[in-house]
């Protein structure tokens, strides 16, 4: 009973954050949602008696893949919000 409640709670978290990854416009928020989703997937591995896979999941995905993705977001999205901010400031000054 307790395991079923845990499963459904974390299933709601996983599917909701996966929908957030797909639907959110901002890549920063999408990558944060991806982190939540990958962390909650690790809970299923513990429930499926695969603790080693859960540890590797957290280390590889949240420690490696997510850092790489946020790094790429920083490199590729850095100029566009600055441009929009500059446009807003110049548009607001006169």
């Amino acid at each position: 009973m307790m395991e079923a409640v845990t499963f459904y709670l974390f299933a709601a978290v996983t599917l909701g954050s996966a929908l957030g990854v797909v639907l959110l416009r901002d890549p920063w928020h999408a990558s944060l949602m991806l982190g939540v989703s990958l962390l909650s997937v690790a809970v299923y591995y513990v429930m499926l008696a695969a603790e080693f896979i859960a540890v590797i999941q957290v280390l590889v995905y949240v420690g490696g893949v997510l850092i790489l993705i946020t790094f790429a977001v920083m490199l590729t999205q850095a100029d566009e919000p600055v441009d929009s901010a500059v446009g807003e400031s110049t548009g607001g000054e006169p």
Partner: protein
Amino acid sequence: MIGIEHYLGLSAALFCIGLFGILTRRNALMFLMSVELMVNAAAINLVAFALYYGTLTGQVFTLFVLGLAAAEVAVGLGIILVLHRNYGTIDVTAPTTMRW
């Protein structure tokens, strides 16, 4: 202990969400994140079947899948950075030089 069909349903839903993301978004980073979601759905399936059959084969497969996903993200980010340097955007519909 809950049955394996719950995990299979969750995995199918997660895979469909990732597929929806690939089919609808045009940002290359969103492609990578959606592929990660689909890979995770497959890995949940593998671990669930490993418990169902009582062997470790699925867990070893999952380890290989994790390594593949990490390598795929590294290569994909290299491609995305080159795309951003050459075209100034990471919209996947912008580069058309290989179209004939």
